[in-house]
Structure formats: structure tokens, C-alpha cells
């Protein structure tokens, strides 16, 4: 008999045994043996059935409870883990289990909590990250943070973390038990803020702030647990974005956490906002308990929670309300809502600011949180189109300054309208305006455009604009505010003419009806200035900027962000007019205001402003100052690692230019490469700015004698320009100039000459005067001269090279590498010419 047959026979026997076993179960237990003997003829099968019956009669709990894979082997009291001895299990949860333990190596007595990571959460590659993370956490020391003492792996490779043991109750429970007063609650909360802020300073985000992680000891000292643990754990879990399954919705998680977008310190601010809401109202902003995760997600991400004061007022008498609603109305409402804003950028800039506003409230000072931008309400109304509006706003505004002086107008859009004080009534009136205009049954809107018709955002805004005078006749301030928002929205959509038109209406109304001390008047001037700038009426823009700044100085705090924005914009305008000294001065004013405001903290607008300052210095030939500025802009970007800023590409681009001028070609190339990488990611692979940045890389590659490898770069850059029908626009010169340089390096004189012709033709469109100190002019002459020299026409090359050298000397001085490079070309042309003259030759006649 072959093995296979034997196997198959055994299988058959087993199968039969199972059948007979089941049938015998129908018999009374005592009679089963006899019944089998009688009915089942196969002794082998009978023997198997008997063994099954024995096993079946065991009757204890064999396999009775399902094998949930999640529970860790219980550690008996007295087990040793590292330097600690386990006392008892404190808690067991989805994340793993927590044991109370004490130090047991005779060094000192200390109670600790040891957390074991859940088996399900242990990814093989997580261990390495775990190790690096814990080093960072070990450095986090604060009187209100439970210190991480140790971490490691058991013999079975189970990761654990040892934390300072905190004996306390959750912060919400503490306040409830002690019936803590409003002031004490706020003071307690501020201590929590100071702990979170300390962590943020070393760039540790908690990610999981909730009452269960904030215990208060019997002495009333709040202690934060599990700092950074969530991140350590999260890294062990692979994210599968391909599925439609979303994570569960913890009540304190921010919208970006729920949607698995980038988590930053701002996510903690949101969670703190939810916590404050609960501390003050006794309930959470959203009731999520009975919802499916998908429903919960849409609630957290898409709906506004009731105001704190409304939540308390609605609670009625059945709930013990910790703080009366009237005490919460107004400032506290605004503070909590700002912290809980759905968009991270619109929350407090830091936990410290958040805490500071509470402090101001406690001292009876006006708070910094301002009413939510009115435009938000427009956007909200616009509904499904809102992201289009916001996106358009962001993209277009960020492009205004172009490559040469990037601005931070996206932020401006956020802040310009933040001027008005946070008056709930005002926001309500504006809301009512939009409701009235668009939603009421008698609304002309409905009859004009029909229900559900596909209307453009522009139409919506137009209509809103047409209603302002009649619907808000008695409210000039609101009129101005609404018009300003509309102007901003048109600006964002790139409809600059219309934006200017509406801005001018706002300004007329403001001049006629508002006092000169109203900040709205300054903003209205500012918006008109922007309108003229964007419609390229630069001369018209300047006086409005100047008036806006002088009005703002009178009507706003000296460190108002909008004031900084005005200076910045004016700097951009002066830059465009090549009034570089004035531009640098304005840029510096903008930076001073922001630095004062941010008190040394890194801030995108500051980094970008410094970059712009560097650019202006570079334009004026101050290479050293420019390099310093670019370096410090770069290091500020590096201090904000949570986000990559597109503007960094521009800073690197400009720094690359300075390196080239200094003859530091390798560094120039490194910067250019990095700039390309960032631009590809942040602007996209067919963005016009990318073409310009690629052009820089072409130049650095040629400088490094890598001319042969750049053909694809030239193609890409030209391709992008062609896609945008930009090939005939002046910006294309930025690509054609390095292309000419490249052709020359390959000694393809015909193509080089053609590219240079294009550059010169495009430059004529922008009418750069020959006497303007401008490196690009010098480069063009030098390149033309170099080409003529290579073609054996030194006599024609000389005057051009001479002009290039003169220009560079004036700009940078005689000792800069690029000046010397042009000088060397000039010398060579001189020698060749002298040689030719000695041989009685002249330049061959030029073609055509």
C-alpha cells in the first residue's frame, strides 16, 4: 500500500468517526458504547469515536471563551521588569495594560506605572522608532508632566514604557467633586496649557489630550500623562488610505486627526479647546456616543458645536451647571471657539496664546481672539463651492508676488478681516444678512437664479454685493465689512477688476460714514491699494498703501499683523518699481512688527519676510547681507518641521543665485536641486514657477560642467512654459537665458544665439532700462559676448563684455567671483583681438 492510500484511508476513518460521534450523541450517555458496538462495524472507527466521547465528556472550559488575541499575559505580582518590580494591574485597555510597580534595585524608592504595548499594535519595524522617540520623551521635564523614566523591551520583545506614577483623578472629575469655581477652573486649565506648551517648545505633540490623560492630585496639581505615547504607538500601525474605513472617533480628536491629515501642535490646541468646553459647561461640544464613526466624523468635521454659553443655557435645571451661562457668554465663548476652529490655521497660533487670552479674560482685559472672518460665512453659504473659493484664494494670493518676492497673502486673507472686535451680535447680523439675501422665500436671489441652478461663485458674490446698500442701510460698519469680504473673495478668484470696484465702494462708504479712527477705514484703503496693485496700476496703488499705513498706525495696536502686511505689500510694490531702498525699508518695518508680535518664535510670515529682505539686498548688490538673510530664513523654516513651505523653494532659489555670483558652484547646485524638489512637491509638476526653478538648476549644472545631463531639464522647463502659453511672456526669459548658456557650453552656437535672441526680445517687453543695476542685464551681455568670442569675433564681443563687467563692478564690486569671471572673458577677448589685429584680421562679418 502506498503512503498516499494509507493517508486517504486514515482520513476516511476520521471522517467516519466524526459522523458516528455525532450520531452517538443522540443516544443517552450511558448507552453510547453499546449502541456503537451494535451499529458501527469498523473497530478502528469505534476506537476513534470512543476517544472523542472521552474528550467530549471533559466538560470544563476547554475553548469555551473565544481567543481574543488582544489580552496580554497577566504579569503576576512580584514579576520583574527591568529595574522594577510589579505590584498590580491598574488598568487594561485597548492600548495595552498598565501596571503599578516600584523601583527595586536599591537605588531609590519610587512608585511607577509601567505600560505595555498591546500585542496587536506591535509592528516589527516599530521598535527602532520606539527607541528614538523615547529618547526625545525622556528629555521632557515639567512639573505638570508625568516624567517618562525608562523604556525598553521585555525578554519577549514586548515594548514598555515606565512613567512616573500619578495618584489622582481626571481633571473633569476633580472639578466636579470639588465644585471648583470658574476662576479656579481656568487657573487649573492654564497650568495644563503651560505643560503642553513646554512640550510644544521641544516639538512634542501630545495627540491624545483628554480628561483621562490629565489627572489632578489630591493637592490640586494637574499632571499630564502619556505625552507623545500616542505617536510612538501610531508609528507602529500602518495606515491604509486605500480603504474607505476610517478610524474611530475619539471625542477630543481634531478634524485633521479624524481625517488623518497632518497632525501638528495645533491639534493639541483643538483638544484643549474641547477640554475647556467640557470643564466650563459640564458637557462635550458634540454628543458622539450613539453615532457611528462615519456619522461622528461628519459631525466633528462639518458641523459647528453650540456655543459654550448656549450649551449651558440649554442644559436646563437637570444638569448641575458648573458655571452660569451669563459668565460664559462673550469672551469665553469666543476663546473656546477659536481654539476649536476646524481649520488648524485659524486656531490660536500657540498654546501660550490660548492661555494668554484666558489670562487676559481673568484680568478683565480685551481678549485677542477676534470674530471669525466674515468671509468664512460667505464660504459656508457657498457650500459645496467653498473649497473652490478657498483654494482659489490661496493659490492666487500666493502667486501675486511671483518668484521674485513671494508674499504671504494667504495669511493676509485670514487676518485682514480679523480686525473687528469679537462681537457675537455683529456676526449674527452678518449671518442674518446672508440668510435674508439668499434664503428667504421672497429673496430675489431665488427668483433670479432659480432653485438648485448651477450658479458660479462670482454670481453669488455679485448678488450679495448688490444687496448690501439696501439690506444693511443703517449699519455702515457692517456694510464696509461685508464689501471688504466680497472684495477679498473676488481677489481670491482672480477677478481683480471687480475686486477693486467693490473695494472702492467699501472705501467710499467708510470715508463717508465711519470715523477716521475706525480700523475698517484703514483696511478699506488697504484693499483698494491691493486692487490697484493687482490690476497693475502701480502708481495708483502707492498713495492708498501710504494712507492705509498711516490710518492703521492711529487705529490699531502697534503690533497689529495687518499693519505688517501693509508694509510688506508696499515693499513688494516698491520692489516691482525697482525702488529697492524703499522696498527694503518697508520690508524691514513689516518684519519688525511681526518679530515683536511673535516674540522670537518661528513664524512662516517672518521666514518669508526675511527671504524677501534677502532678495532685496541681493538686488542691491549686498551679497553678504543677502546670504545672511537667506540662511536665517532657512533656519527658521527648519524650526517649523511640521510643514514644508513652498516659499522655501524661493529662498533656496535666491540663495543659489548668490552662491553662483560668489563662485560657489557646488553649493549653488545643492540649493537649486533642493528648490526643484520642494517646488515639484509644493507647486506641482507643471507649475510655471517650477520652470523658473528648473532654469536655475540648468545654470548650476552647466557651471559644474554637467552640461550633457541637462537636456531633459531644458525640455521640461520649456514644456511647462508651453503648457501655460507662457513661451512668449517675459518670464520665459528666465528659462531661455540658461538654455542659451547650456547651448554655448555644448558649442551649439546657432541654438545659443537663437535662445539669446528670444531672451532679448522678451526683455524688451518689460523695458528694463540699460542703466538699471541688474544682474540679468549683465548676464545677457556677458553671454552674448562669450558667444561672439567663441565664434571668433572678439572685436564685437569686447564692448558687450565691457558693459557686463562695468555693471557687475557697480553691483557687487571688483572682487566677486562673477565679476572676475566676466573680467577674464573680457581679457581673453582683448588678447584675441590684439592677436587678430597683429595678424591684420577683423571679425568675420555677422550673419544676416
Amino acid at each position: 500500500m502506498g503512503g498516499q492510500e494509507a493517508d486517504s484511508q486514515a482520513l476516511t476513518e476520521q471522517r467516519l468517526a466524526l459522523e458516528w460521534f455525532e450520531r452517538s450523541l443522540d443516544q443517552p450517555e450511558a448507552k453510547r458504547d453499546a449502541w456503537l458496538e451494535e451499529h458501527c462495524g469498523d473497530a478502528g472507527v469505534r476506537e476513534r469515536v470512543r476517544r472523542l466521547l472521552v474528550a467530549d465528556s471533559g466538560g470544563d472550559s476547554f475553548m469555551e471563551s473565544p481567543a481574543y488575541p488582544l489580552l496580554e499575559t497577566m504579569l503576576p505580582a512580584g514579576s520583574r521588569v527591568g529595574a522594577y518590580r510589579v505590584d498590580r494591574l491598574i488598568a487594561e485597555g485597548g492600548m495595552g495594560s498598565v501596571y503599578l510597580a516600584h523601583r527595586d534595585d536599591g537605588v531609590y524608592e519610587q512608585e511607577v506605572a509601567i505600560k505595555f504595548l498591546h500585542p496587536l499594535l506591535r509592528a516589527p519595524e516599530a521598535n527602532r522608532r520606539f527607541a528614538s522617540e523615547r529618547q526625545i520623551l525622556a528629555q521632557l521635564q515639567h512639573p505638570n508632566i508625568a516624567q517618562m523614566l525608562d523604556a525598553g523591551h521585555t525578554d519577549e520583545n514586548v515594548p514598555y514604557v515606565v512613567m512616573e506614577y500619578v495618584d489622582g483623578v481626571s481633571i473633569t472629575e476633580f472639578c466636579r467633586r470639588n465644585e471648583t469655581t470658574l476662576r479656579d477652573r481656568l487657573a487649573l486649565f492654564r497650568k495644563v496649557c503651560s505643560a503642553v506648551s513646554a512640550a510644544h517648545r521641544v516639538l512634542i505633540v501630545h495627540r491624545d489630550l483628554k480628561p483621562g490623560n490629565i489627572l489632578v492630585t489630591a493637592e490640586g496639581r494637574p499632571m499630564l500623562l502619556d505625552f507623545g505615547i500616542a505617536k510612538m504607538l501610531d508609528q507602529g500601525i500602518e495606515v491604509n488610505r486605500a480603504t474607505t474605513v476610517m478610524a474611530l472617533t475619539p471625542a477630543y480628536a481634531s478634524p485633521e486627526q479624524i481625517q488623518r491629515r497632518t497632525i501638528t501642535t495645533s491639534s493639541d490646541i483643538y483638544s484643549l479647546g474641547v477640554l475647556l468646553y467640557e470643564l466650563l459647561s459640564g458637557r462635550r461640544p458634540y454628543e458622539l456616543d450613539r453615532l457611528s464613526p462615519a456619522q461622528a466624523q461628519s459631525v466633528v468635521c462639518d458641523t459647528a458645536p453650540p456655543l459654550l454659553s448656549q450649551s449651558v443655557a440649554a442644559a436646563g435645571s437637570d444638569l448641575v451647571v458648573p458655571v452660569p451661562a451669563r459668565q460664559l457668554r462673550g469672551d469665553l465663548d469666543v476663546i473656546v471657539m477659536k481654539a476649536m476652529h476646524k481649520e488648524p490655521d485659524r486656531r490660536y497660533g500657540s498654546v501660550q496664546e490660548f492661555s494668554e487670552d484666558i489670562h487676559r479674560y481673568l484680568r478683565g482685559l480685551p481678549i485677542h481672539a477676534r470674530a471669525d472672518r466674515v468671509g468664512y460665512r460667505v464660504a459656508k453659504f457657498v457650500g459645496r463651492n467653498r473649497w473652490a473659493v478657498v483654494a482659489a484664494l490661496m493659490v492666487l494670493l500666493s502667486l501675486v508676488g511671483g518668484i521674485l518676492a513671494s508674499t504671504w497673502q494667504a495669511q493676509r486673507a485670514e487676518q485682514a478681516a480679523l480686525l473687528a472686535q469679537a462681537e457675537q451680535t455683529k456676526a449674527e447680523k452678518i449671518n442674518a444678512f446672508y440668510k435674508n439675501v439668499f434664503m428667504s422665500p421672497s429673496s430675489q436671489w431665488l427668483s433670479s437664479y432659480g432653485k438648485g441652478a448651477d450658479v458660479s461663485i462670482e454670481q453669488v458674490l455679485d448678488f450679495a454685493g448688490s444687496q448690501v446698500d439696501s439690506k444693511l442701510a443703517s449699519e455702515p460698519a457692517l456694510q464696509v465689512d461685508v464689501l471688504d469680504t466680497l472684495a477679498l473673495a473676488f481677489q481670491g478668484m482672480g477677478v481683480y477688476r471687480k475686486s477693486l470696484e467693490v473695494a472702492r465702494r467699501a472705501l467710499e462708504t467708510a470715508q463717508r460714514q465711519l470715523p477716521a479712527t475706525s480700523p475698517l477705514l484703514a483696511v478699506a484703503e488697504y484693499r483698494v491699494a491691493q486692487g490697484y496693485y493687482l490690476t497693475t496700476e502701480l502708481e495708483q496703488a502707492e498713495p492708498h498703501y501710504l494712507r492705509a499705513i498711516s490710518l492703521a498706525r492711529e487705529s490699531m495696536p502697534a503690533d497689529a499683523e495687518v499693519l505688517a502686511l501693509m508694509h510688506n505689500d508696499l515693499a513688494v510694490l516698491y520692489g516691482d518699481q525697482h525702488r529697492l531702498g524703499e522696498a527694503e525699508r518697508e520690508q524691514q518695518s513689516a518684519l519688525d512688527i511681526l518679530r515683536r508680535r511673535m516674540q522670537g518664535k518661528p513664524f512662516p510670515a517672518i521666514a518669508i519676510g526675511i527671504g524677501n529682505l534677502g532678495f532685496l539686498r541681493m538686488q542691491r548688490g549686498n551679497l553678504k547681507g543677502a546670504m545672511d538673510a537667506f540662511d536665517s530664513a532657512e533656519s527658521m523654516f527648519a524650526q517649523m518641521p511640521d510643514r514644508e513651505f513652498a516659499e522655501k523653494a524661493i529662498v533656496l532659489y535666491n540663495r543659489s543665485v548668490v552662491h553662483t555670483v560668489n563662485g560657489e558652484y557646488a553649493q549653488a547646485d545643492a540649493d537649486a536641486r533642493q528648490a526643484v524638489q520642494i517646488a515639484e512637491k509644493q507647486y506641482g509638476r507643471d507649475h510655471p514657477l517650477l520652470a523658473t526653478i528648473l532654469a536655475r538648476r540648468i545654470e548650476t549644472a552647466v557651471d559644474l560642467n554637467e552640461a550633457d545631463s541637462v537636456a531633459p531639464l531644458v525640455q521640461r522647463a520649456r514644456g511647462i512654459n508651453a503648457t501655460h502659453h507662457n513661451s512668449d511672456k517675459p518670464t520665459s526669459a528666465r528659462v531661455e537665458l540658461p538654455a542659451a548658456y547650456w547651448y554655448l557650453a555644448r558649442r551649439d552656437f546657432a541654438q545659443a544665439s537663437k535662445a539669446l535672441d528670444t531672451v532679448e526680445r522678451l526683455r524688451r517687453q518689460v523695458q528694463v532700462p540699460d542703466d538699471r543695476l541688474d544682474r540679468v542685464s549683465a548676464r545677457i551681455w556677458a553671454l552674448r559676448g562669450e558667444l561672439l568670442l567663441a565664434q571668433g569675433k572678439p572685436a564685437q564681443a569686447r564692448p558687450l563684455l565691457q558693459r557686463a563687467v562695468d555693471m557687475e563692478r557697480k553691483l557687487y564690486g571688483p572682487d566677486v567671483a562673477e565679476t572676475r569671471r566676466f573680467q577674464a572673458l573680457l581679457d581673453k577677448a582683448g588678447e584675441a583681438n590684439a592677436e587678430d589685429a597683429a595678424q591684420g584680421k577683423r571679425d568675420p562679418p555677422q550673419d544676416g
Partner: protein
Amino acid sequence: MTRLLTDWQSGDLAAGDRLIRLIYPDLRRLAFRQLDGAAQVTLQPTALVHEVWLKLDGADRLGCESRAHFMSLVARIMRQIVIDHARHRSAGKRDGGVRITLHEQLRAPDQQDLDVLALDQALYRLASIDKDKARIVEMHYFGGMSSDEIAAVMGCSAITVKRGWRTAKAWLREQLE
């Protein structure tokens, strides 16, 4: 995913594999997300399945039977997770014998820990003798499914499931002890 689920129900095995690949990371993630302040969260597969199921696009149109099928799929994943974990733990040991503690709260004090790797092997053998019984074990023991739910998947009565479970259990016990 709903599409994959229907394909799998109608016999497309590859669809089942793809589903597992899609769901597995989310189960892990869900397990992690369970921690929400409340201590003592027991991560029962049924609870996890519930969460995942609710989030399936169009799950509400699929009805109870599909849901049970889906649970059976999760049971298979759970089995895999248990086994992976046991293997991982055994990798560091010399004798190769692995004992994994089962559900702590329900465990009788005198009960021996079960060697899940041996159980896994035995289940493969059982499948070659009686495929349905092996599936019942997988769904009930690893997936925490009730007899009714298993019956819905297998298209038989709950009585048959109960009897099958008893038989399979006796067989496994006989094999393992």
C-alpha cells in the same frame, strides 16, 4: 469593498484575499482607537467588526447575511493575528512551546493555557477531514460569532452549527491533549 464582498460571497476567492488585505490594517488601527478614556475595553472581534461594518460604503444595502459573511472573514483575520503574535513571541524562545493566555476574565483558574500554534496546525488537519467544522471553529473561537451568525454564513441551521462545534471541539481536544 462592498463590491469585493459580494464577489467573494459569490465564490471569488481572490476577492476574499484582497478584502483581507484591505481590512487587516484597519482592524489593527481600530484596536488601537478603542482607547477612549474608558478603561477596561475588551477588544472583542465582534465589536471591531461592528465598527468596520458601519463604515463600509453601502453596507446598509447588503443585509444581515452579508454581514455574517463579513464577520467570518474577520474571524480568519483574527486567527491570523493570534497566530502571528504567538509566532512572534515564540521566535525568542528556545523550546518552541508557546502558551498564550486566553481571555483572562473568563478563564477558569485551573485551565491550562492553550498552545495556539498547535491548535492552528490541528485546525488545518481538521479542515482536511471536515472543512465545515474547521470553519465553525474559526468563526466561533477566533471570530466570536454566535451559532445563528455562523448558520447564516454556512446556510444551515443553528442546531447543526452547535453540534458541529461540539464535535470539532472534542476532536481538537483529543488531538491536543
